[in-house]
């Protein structure tokens, strides 16, 4: 690799001009490059949504699956070949809506996967319906009475579920994002990075200015493994929106807990065993 641009595959993104995803894409390439990871060492997994198109614009292995179902696919890949770096991209709808159950149980299972959520607080690809993180009361074509559910706080949820690495960044704070991305990728265990992402087409409220006036970067003044403190910090969202690492722990990963693959990858053990002992 000569430059982070070597992760380019020549396909031009189908995003709107001004979309926050461009910055995230660029930053991700830089993060991989700076970590010295080679394209074939990575498998990117995604669901469906604007954010889930990410793998198409990167020179890596990839499985772009169904809306909401990226985490199980990623888990299957990671346990079958734990030498691959498995990284998932998803939207707030994809991850917290359709895919909510898989997220809940990925927290518990703790596979060695990095999950980047492009949280634009809206369903982008399907044209502007409320997502699980849309603010209460927001009117859309699908929410004629306004969004009637309380927005989901992904960080609080992750911390309550003892997620192994929990962070937030912003598509408009790319240096910050790059460092967080690198830490998340290097973290051993399930890492969630909720990236506040600008959607110029369907989220006119939470736009760049809105965020710029609220976000600030922080370094936890508590032990990152302190779940109560982290939970408390996660409650801060409104006039002030903290960016940074909220929580992390060093729980053994799912792959580490699985005795079968202690020494070798599963894929390296593929064989046709003798079944005679079973016929009895």
């Amino acid at each position, binding site marked *: 690799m000569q430059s982070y641009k070597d992760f380019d595959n020549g*396909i031009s993104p*189908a995003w709107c001009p001004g979309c926050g995803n461009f910055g995230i894409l660029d930053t991700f390439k830089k993060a991989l490059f700076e970590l010295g990871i*080679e*394209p*074939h*060492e990575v*498998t990117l*997994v995604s669901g*469906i949504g604007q954010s889930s*198109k990410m*793998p*198409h614009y990167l*020179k*890596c*292995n*990839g*499985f*772009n*699956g*169904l809306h909401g*179902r990226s*985490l*199980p*696919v*990623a*888990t*299957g*890949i*990671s*346990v*079958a*070949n734990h*030498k*691959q770096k498995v990284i998932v991209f998803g939207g707030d709808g994809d991850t917290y809506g359709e895919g909510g*159950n*898989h997220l*809940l*149980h990925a927290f518990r299972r703790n596979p060695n996967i990095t999950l980047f959520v492009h949280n634009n607080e809206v369903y982008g690809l399907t044209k502007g319906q409320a997502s699980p993180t849309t603010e209460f009361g927001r009117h859309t074509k699908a929410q004629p009475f306004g969004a009637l559910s309380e927005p989901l706080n992904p960080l609080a949820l992750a911390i309550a579920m003892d997620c192994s690495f929990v962070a937030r960044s912003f598509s408009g704070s790319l240096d910050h994002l790059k460092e967080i991305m690198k830490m998340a990728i290097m973290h051993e265990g399930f890492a969630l990075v909720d990236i506040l992402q600008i959607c110029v087409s369907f989220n006119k409220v939470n736009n760049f200015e809105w965020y710029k006036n609220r976000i600030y970067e922080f370094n936890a003044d508590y032990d990152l493994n302190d779940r109560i403190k982290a939970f408390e910090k996660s409650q801060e969202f409104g006039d002030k929106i903290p960016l940074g690492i909220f929580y992390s722990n060093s729980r053994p990963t799912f792959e580490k807990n*699985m*005795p*079968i*693959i202690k020494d070798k990858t*599963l*894929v390296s*053990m*593929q*064989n*046709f*065993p003798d*079944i005679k002992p*079973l*016929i*009895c």
Partner: protein
Amino acid sequence: MNYTIRICGEAGQGIQTTGEGFSRLFSSLGYNVFSFQDYESRIRGGHNFYQITFGTDEAYAPKKFLDLILTFDKRGLEYKDVLHRGGVVIYDADSLRQSESDERFINCPFRNMLKDAGLKNIFENVLSFALVSNIFSIDKKYVYKVIQDIFSDKSEDILDQNMKAIDIGYNYDIKKKIDLPPSNSDSKILLDGVKGVGIGAIGSGCKFYSAYPMTPSTGVFQYIGANAEKYNIVVEQAEDELSAINMTLGASFAGVRAMTGTSGGGFALMNEALSLSGMTETPIVMLLSQRPGPATGFPTRTEQGELLYAIHAGHGDFPKVVFAPGDPLECALLTNKAFDLAEKYQIPAIVLTDQHLVDSLYSYEKDLKIDLKNQDYRLRSAEFESYQDYKRHKFLDLNKENPLSPLAVPGEGKQLVFTDSDEHDEEGHITEDGEVRKKQLERRYFWKIENIRKEISPPRIYGNKNSKIVLVGFGSNLGILKEIANNKKLSICTIHYSEIFPLPLRENSEEALNKMLNAYVTICIENNASGQFQKLIESEYRLKFSNNIRKFDGRPFNYDEVLEGIYAII
């Protein structure tokens, strides 16, 4: 000469252990054995039974009439109506608080005997097992052996008490004796559908199995789990069926043979990802172990009600295969064929069983050989490294023997492996191009369905091939078809399909089709209300059955009712 015994009682009374004990006892003595289970969806209480047919004749199917009933609950007494002449009911009048005067009822005071010996009631099934063994004049050492095997992981103390219970039961002065002809065979082994599928999967190199528990598919999940350590298999219970199948797809994409299993409701939840398997050309094998639907239905009972659903499942047009094995051996062989075709053609393959098949024991010769086809179609390490211009979904080059772009293992070469659930170009990237789609369908759909179909074997034909009465069935009704073919009263030809979708080419199954076309009476038999198999065969081969026999009360067919059904028709 065969006999049939039925052990009855509540869940939790050890019916299953006793039934398995008899199955093992008779098969170890070289007799043919067939046993099946009838149980409720509860852990304790209710009414269950376990029925074993054994003897010197072939045995593959349930019988309506019984030679001996051993019952631990009152409801078992009611089966007296289906006793053969000379048949008896063994029961403990005290513990059931019911005494029958009819001479077919033999009161054996199990609990009092145990009490006298200072043993707990839970030993009543071992005691009665020995007692019944004695009725058939089985040498006591075999009785010991079976119980020792079954309780081999129990403490010495428990084992001792079991042996004591055997002695009491065996020595009980029972007047009744049933004459069992000597077996003329070596000891046999027993397989049920669970083991059949499990052995097939393990032998095919299944390295990953993810599932969510659902009766009657859980047996295979747990069987593979029990062998996971020995065979280096990752088994994982998913949070739901959506996850189970998507994990399976992930593992397969990463380069291992992978499988999932479920029953109807879970299968419904897996439909979307089945379609994903078709689109991304990621091979998977799925076990669909049927129970009666719709919805939760009859969780512990049997039906063949998801044949057409399995065939049509998943949105959009994509190829798949559906196999419905007829017995444990076919379970192994067709699970293997499912793995082979799934990987060769990069498609999903479904193995369709049902509660009756997975829970029933069939005896086989001790030296049974299960020949599996094992070919690794993946592009791995060095081979991948040197492969020219790899593209996951390359358009067909019909000059190649298998013109599909091979499944490469991501990371084992520097070239990249990429796929997508959207319509995609050769490299797996999203396209909006109608021409590209047409070219993808050419290979992903048309080429595959044409070539897969050539691999499908014709149905098997049993009985008198010249008979003008033809009985046709599929899947778990194989046993019935074989026994009906063997019947000595009526000359019948029976035909069994186990490779169900796509159906065999007409030119590959002329013999069977001619039999159906030339018969006076063609009867389609199946275990569902709507006649799904009949519709399938009729529309595929443009023929018409003259009659059908269907059952949909959650219970399997028995030999006698089917024979009666045929008589009623002809």
